[in-house]
């Protein structure tokens, strides 16, 4: 075989293999969509049977207005939790990260090591005491409980990420502003915060998607069906003995649609956030 032909064959083979693997990874998602968009009777023998094929939104509408766990309500609850649980740790974390990056404070290094360690803390390690705190504070079974715990849970990695980002930003301008008599707070708000916007977008995207996706905290802190966040509703829709896959897959597609769309729109920030958070 000539070297040229060998190279062409090699290229064809790698492309076929790569795209084949990509398709393999996509099959479960195709299955979800195919099952959700057709009457259950059509897919009972397998969603890959295309005869008959009558697409319908019935499952989506049923999941959205479901009697026990309407997804419209769950999505709303997810937003009520997700927006403040993203903005608060972003703000508190950025301010703290600035303190850690620029000031010399007592115990600073010990505190920072503690924070880094906390990034690896399994949620199981705090679940019971926080449950008891909420119980005595009357916060159990409220959406506040989720906002608080997600704010706290986001802080360590956001502080870590933002501090690393700030340590790559030169200090000259801040020093100049200080010489001109600007206070620490002015310097932070006017000079530092605008520079950190791209990093903050990364932080916001990641944090919101994690809050949206988290299942453990909503499961243990909130019990009422009308306070369930969207992710928490999915197992409720499963049914005990017989799984109504049409309904369940439709709800699943909608619940994952939010993070998937965010990812598609803000992929650059997401990847940069994740790579920066883990690699630096």
């Amino acid at each position, binding site marked *: 075989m000539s070297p040229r032909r060998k190279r062409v064959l090699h290229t064809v083979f*790698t*492309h076929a293999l*790569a*795209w084949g693997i*990509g398709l393999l*990874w996509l099959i*479960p998602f195709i*299955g*979800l969509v195919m*099952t959700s968009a057709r009457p259950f009777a059509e897919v*009972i*023998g*397998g*969603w*890959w049977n295309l005869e008959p094929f009558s697409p319908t939104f019935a499952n989506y509408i049923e999941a959205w207005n479901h009697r026990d766990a309407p997804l419209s309500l769950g999505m709303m609850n997810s937003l009520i939790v997700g927006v403040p649980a993203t903005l608060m740790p972003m703000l*508190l974390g950025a*301010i*703290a990260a600035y*303190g850690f990056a620029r000031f010399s*404070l*007592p115990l600073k290094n010990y*505190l920072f*090591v*503690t924070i*880094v360690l*906390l990034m*690896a*803390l*399994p949620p*199981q*390690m*705090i*679940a*019971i*005491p926080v449950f008891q*705190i909420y119980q005595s504070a009357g916060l159990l079974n409220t959406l506040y409980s989720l906002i608080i715990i997600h704010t*706290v849970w986001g*802080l*360590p990695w956001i502080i*870590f990420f933002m501090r690393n980002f700030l340590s790559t930003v030169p200090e000259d301008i801040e020093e100049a502003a200080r010489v001109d008599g600007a206070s*620490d707070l002015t310097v932070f708000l006017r000079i530092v915060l605008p520079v950190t916007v791209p990093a903050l977008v990364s932080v916001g995207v990641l944090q919101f998607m994690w809050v949206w996706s*988290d*299942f*453990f905290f909503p*499961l*243990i802190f909130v019990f009422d069906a009308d306070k369930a966040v969207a*992710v928490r509703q*999915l*197992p409720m829709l499963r049914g005990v003995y017989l*799984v109504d896959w049409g309904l369940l*897959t439709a709800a*699943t597609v909608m*619940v*994952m649609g939010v993070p998937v769309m965010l*990812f598609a729109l803000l*992929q650059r920030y997401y*990847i940069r956030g994740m790579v920066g958070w*883990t*690699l*630096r």
Partner: protein
Amino acid sequence: MRGQTLRRSLFIIPAVALIFAFAVYPALDTLWMSLWTPAGEFDPVANYSEVLGERHIINRRGFEAGRFPFGALPHTFIWIGIHLPLTTFLGLLLAVLLQRVRGSGIIKSIIFLGMVIPMVVGGLVIRFMFDGDLGVVNQLFGALGMQTRTWTAHPNSALLALIFGAVWLWTGFSLVLYSSGLATIPKDFYEAARIDGANAVQIFFKITFPLLKPITVVVVVMTVIWDLKMFDLVYAATMGGPGGSSNILAFQMWRYAFQQFNFNHAAVVAVLLFVITVFVAIPLVRRAR
């Protein structure tokens, strides 16, 4: 100067206070709780040995009979033992393969979707894929003349089904990290090696893999941490069943704590998870400083 230190402390105090109230104190409290028996006696040895002797944690009968369930602790190690090498190497191989493929961005995004979707969704999809009637896995196995069933509902296959599902979900992580690492290796290295007559396999093991070692450390540590706290997948796909054969530590902790309200036993499991996590995370924390 004192006034300035005080004022500057205000930058970190709100965040630090929240972290101490809702993370540091609870973690210490859990540790403290694990030292007491459910009967209310301070007896760490008794409490820990009681939990480790539980058949949900280590099932001696399972080991004697050589079949599932073996208990949550061995299951967790089986999970890591299969999931960690599979996702790590699969991600690395795919990253190398996709280097010179057109449209690799799309393929990477597809594979990375598993990281983007909620884990509960991941669990439901696993249940869906392995379903006896609707599952595409059965269709494939049936076509090959093999046994078909709902794989997540059988003791011998439930845990493995979950693990393979987790591979599908998590490979995107190592793929993306390795891809960004590959982009930083200078092309000269490869050219020099090729001029010296090295073949593709040699180049991979002598150049690519050693240069990516820092990334391998991150991938391994993060994957193990993720595996240890894995809960949603189990809850959505199998509820630890059947008969505890897909039960793992994080799930058993929830059962102790919030099904049986046995906080002291749950605390022991949480501490076990934490200790293993810290042990694994040491290289990463060292680098972060």
